[in-house]
């Protein structure tokens, strides 16, 4: 059997693949976080909760309404995104002129509410969501076994990340968005309804988190606390990548997921904290983050 530094190659590749799956979730979540922060100046602590709600929307959809996975992929982000829009209109928009810390605290409160409600409704133990029929089975690549569903998660989230990057960096809509981030007053003066853009951006960021939630439902146990520990890792990813950069958010998400996977091979005890330790090192070396500008 082939070995690298004494570790069997299939083990390394298997963990790398798992890491890449996790990294896809990190990338999608930190992407949404970065987009929301760019336009609203709000660090959305509830991002993990929206991710959890997305997974639950898929679970409830299948369990009680018979909505299958493919429809859930579309419907769950729409429903959760709409919830996000309502919260933005009712609550968040009152905070835009204040210190961004208040946005962080408000969304932290929202996350607690969402988790409490879901825990009351579904209990703390997880629910499992079946892998859709079309994506069951494995690819045998010869040197490793790749479950089809995991491959799909990686491909789908890469496509989603790329599309988001393309929309923001290369289209007219994206240039309006970026302009509104730079100078909302001036963009408003050009006759563009900035509050509507802000609202839709928040909705889109939230929908992205919910979509990640649906994608993750078949690979993890759907449970009310699945978002709260994830969001902390995503915060660290965002600090490492630098919050201003869409590209940075995607790349750091994917790479850190793989680093985490490799750590599981080499020194499993540290796999939970390796991202935070990398964050500490990056802060000493480049306080603004790898892709950020001070």
């Amino acid at each position: 059997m082939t070995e690298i530094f004494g570790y069997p190659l299939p083990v390394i590749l298997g963990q790398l693949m798992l890491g890449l799956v996790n990294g896809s979730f990190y990338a999608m979540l930190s992407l949404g976080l970065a987009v929301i922060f760019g336009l609203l100046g709000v660090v959305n602590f509830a991002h993990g909760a929206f991710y959890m709600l997305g997974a639950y929307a898929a679970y409830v959809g299948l369990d009680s309404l018979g909505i299958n996975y493919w429809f859930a992929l579309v419907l769950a982000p729409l429903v959760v995104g709409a919830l996000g829009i309502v919260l933005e209109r009712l609550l968040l928009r009152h905070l835009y002129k204040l210190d961004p810390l208040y946005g962080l605290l408000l969304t932290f409160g929202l996350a607690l509410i969402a988790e409490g409600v879901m825990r009351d409704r579904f209990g703390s133990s997880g629910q499992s969501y079946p892998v859709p029929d079309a994506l069951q089975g494995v690819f045998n690549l010869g040197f490793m076994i790749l479950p089809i569903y995991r491959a799909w998660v990686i491909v789908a989230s890469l496509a989603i990340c790329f599309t988001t990057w393309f929309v923001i960096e290369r289209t007219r809509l994206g240039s309006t968005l970026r302009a509104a981030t730079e100078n909302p007053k001036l963009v408003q003066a050009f006759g563009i309804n900035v509050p509507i853009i802000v609202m839709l951006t928040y909705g889109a960021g939230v929908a992205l988190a919910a979509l990640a939630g649906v994608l993750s439902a078949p690979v993890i146990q759907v449970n009310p606390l699945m978002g709260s520990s994830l969001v902390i890792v995503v915060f660290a990813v965002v600090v490492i990548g630098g919050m201003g950069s869409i590209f940075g958010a995607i790349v750091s998400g994917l790479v850190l997921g793989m680093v985490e996977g490799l750590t599981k091979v080499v020194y499993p005890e540290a796999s939970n904290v390796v991202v935070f330790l990398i964050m500490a090192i990056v802060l000493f070396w480049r306080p603004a983050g790898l892709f950020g500008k001070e």
Partner: protein
Amino acid sequence: MRPVTVFYILLVIAGLLAPWLGVYPVYLMTLFCFAIFASAFNLLLGYGGMLSFGHAAFFGFASYATSWLVTSQGYSTLAGIALGVLASALLGLVVGLIAIRRSGIYFAMITLALSQVVYFVCLQAPFTGGENGLQGVPRGTLFGWLPLKADEAMYYFVFAALVAVVLFIRRIVHSPFGQVLKAIRENEPRAISLGYNVNRYKLLVFVLSASLAGLGGSLKSLVLGFATLSDVLQSTSGEVILMTLLGGAGTFLGPVMGAGIVVTLQDMLSDRVGSWVSVIIGAIFVVCVLAFRRGIVGEFQALAVRWSNKRKPAT
């Protein structure tokens, strides 16, 4: 005497009499430990303008350190507390050195991430008891002759610690150091241009706050006789933010009052409503942030100022 001074004296008298009025001492002691924790947090947020989202790390780390030293290493109570506080001070130094490299929301996210490291250390380290935590922590004796096993003795010890911490924070805030801190909070670039080494001030207040938070944690482990993972959990960091915010950041009594309200709420509600405790706590967060950002004591102070301005004829 100023009315405020009278109020403080009445509060202290009430605190001294409380065990004789039939209030459950363990509940009050828990409340005081969290009041110390919240006051420490307030020193950082209310006067230093830094929002740490991971303060439970210091509270819990000291709680574990003291429990371990007193239970299995045979240290005396006071030595256990002192070393627990020292441990959280050192942890505060390390976390502070990293976190003060950024400010604002980044500071909050970094402290949150680093507190998660402390959580995993407490979960996996060999001497912390993993999921079970450390149990059966003896209260021991004070100065070698005053046993703290009786709730009354322990009560006065913890109460004295709370009064001392509040007075100490008051002293810090009114010192020249405290004035510089406020200057940094209000306008950091100006403080830099005036020649202050801003980072040194920030680090010092961070370490001070971490140590006092550790004192709260050490005392808590002695009062209840255990240190558990919930002491270092992210939700505990959230609770101390809520206590401070609800009572009023930047006031001396606010955090104490906030701790009182939150601990009482949890005590009353946790058996009755289950998961709804977290919903209620979240809702209080939302209301606080939207409706009264100055907190209860802060709003009262603002009201008092307005009232006295009205009474005074315009000169």
